[in-house]
């Protein structure tokens, strides 16, 4: 059972590993335009690191529907909850 706070903590670690920065503030509205270097490959890294971290798997439709960090956090909460 992962709470919203735990999910954001986990995502924070993933983002700091993926982008090698410790200064990102993760908000539900954050999206690829807000972070330098967040391209489709980084997107895959974030997704796969999340899958690994919470032991879950996203399908193609779910991935296509992702727009913001909040979408991702909500989906993790649904799957890992």
């Amino acid at each position, binding site marked *: 059972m992962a709470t919203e706070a735990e999910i954001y903590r986990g995502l924070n670690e993933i983002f700091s*590993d993926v982008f090698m920065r410790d200064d990102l503030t993760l908000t539900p509205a954050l999206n690829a335009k807000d972070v330098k270097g967040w391209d489709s490959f980084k997107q*895959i*890294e974030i997704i*796969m690191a999340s899958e690994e971290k919470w032991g879950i798997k996203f399908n193609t439709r779910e991935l296509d529907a992702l727009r913001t960090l909040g979408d991702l956090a909500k989906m993790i909460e649904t799957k890992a909850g």
Partner: protein
Amino acid sequence: MTDLHWLPTHPDWRQRLRSLHTDPATAWDNAVALANVRLNFVLTNALDEAVRRIFPTGPETLSTKKVRLAVLGSSTLAHLLPGIRIAGLRRGIWIDTYENDYGQYLQELSDTDSPLHAFKPTAVLVALDAYHLTAGVTSGMDAASVEAALTEMQDRIKEIWHLASDAFRCPIIQQAALPLHLPLLGNNEHRLPGSRSWFLTRLNTALRTMAEQEGVDILAVDDRAARDGIAKWHDTALWHRSKQEVSPTASPMYGDLVGRWLAAKQGRSFKCLVLDLDNTVWGGVIGDDGLEGIAIGQGSPLGEAYTAFQEYARELSRRGVILAVCSKNDEANALEPFEKHPDMVLKRGDIASFVANWSNKADNIRAIARDLNIGLDSLCFIDDNPFERNLVRQELPMVAVPEVSDDPTGYPVALSDGGYFEGLSVTDEDRERTSQYQGNKARDAMKAAVTDLPSYLRGLEMELIWRRFDKIGQQRIVQLINKSNQFNLTTRRYTDEDIVAVMADPNAFGLQLRLTDRFGDNGIIAIVIGRLQPNKDLYIDTWLMSCRVLGRQVEPTTLNLIAQEAARLGAKRLVGDYIPTKKNGMVKDHYAKLGFTVMASDEAGGNRNILDLMAFTPAETFIHVIEG
């Protein structure tokens, strides 16, 4: 499993990565250390980015050859490059990489003005994806058409090799096809000529034959996927999304397969497997359990698992890997199973350098390298004991130390998956190597110890947790008292009743000591029984300790506790006997080493020792003592 399970984890890895740039002089060595950790693909990418920021073109001087690797393929490859570069770093090798523009490998190979030619590769990896390799093959084809398609594909691959070889005159490695196509018939897929799945099986066989003829090497991802499961290597949804044939999660493993090939090409594979003995090569402790007591051979699942590991080690030795032994033991005890146990697969003659003593293992491994006259960086050391592994890792970072559990079934897997002994060919000389080393060597006397043990011990965060004898510990106490042979001053055996009597006696104490450190709990490792005499001497009736914790300052710390308990009972002096047996020669001078005065020695080799408690100052050690 595509994770690098044979590498240890590192608690401060992220911090160390962040501070990598602060000291350029040590940055490379520190980066090599960070690469020798169980990294997933995200951390692999992070390390790669940091290292390339510090060294845009690699360090200026290196003992290894820099590599310029061109990766040529038909699908997305960029995500594989950090894993390859970090696998090089793991082995101290700087790798620059180049990938062709998407799908353009043939054009770039043919065009001498292309960026590929400008890159001037010193090694080429041909990584064609399974979809590309089966293009045009369908189940509707008859056998003759499939045959033609197979020949055509072989010719196309050979053409790539020839183009690359003519242009760059460098080693080439061909990635085997990943078996990712689904069967159409099922079990008897081979009866459907146009099956893509069967086509790739045949192509992979043909590739190996061709590679032999053309002097090309094979990157056996097909074998690897057979072990790990294809789903660990290929994610179909990801293929549809980004044309990545190899899943990013498998990229560190993919990179390591390439890295070990490049290292082998430079002659930098490991050459010698150094074996611990107790609980690594057999189950149990030979000095305590004796020849009959150790687990080896048929009859028990554990014994069979150790046999299987010995067989794997012997197979390695028969193809040219040198075997050595590094064990904390009396030499005579350590040799006994090799000479007398009928179920031992490894014989004394299989071991080129045999070191069994009570010195620390880092020094003994140095001695083995000197003895065999090979570099420390060609030794791979396997030991079930995390203390020993980490000591060697800290003292000798160039020695490979695979991370293993206490389950011997994992030992061959760790050695194999780690790719330490990656070989490219086998010669007759390889097959005879062990005997050569045995014939040539002359054992040098051990050089003075140079290991910085204090700093290692300090970093261990050891805690000695002591309790008086109690019901909970009773079973383990009796077991240790009746089992311990080596570090046992008096070898007195006691029953449950005897232990209960100690608990009830106001003029005696029994201590059970547990040692923990940052690697875990070592369990009850020492037992002491003290008895106050009418003359106010405290007689140390029993003092025994597990040999696992030798050399960790447990002895002086235990003495501090004994002195404290003796003072509580009103004692003025400590009296300790050494009673010799066949197996406890290692503690002959135990009391003298701790500052006791030898009062008497007898003909059998025993001695009696006295310590004046008034003049005793507790030793300072790195062990934190708590009652609990």
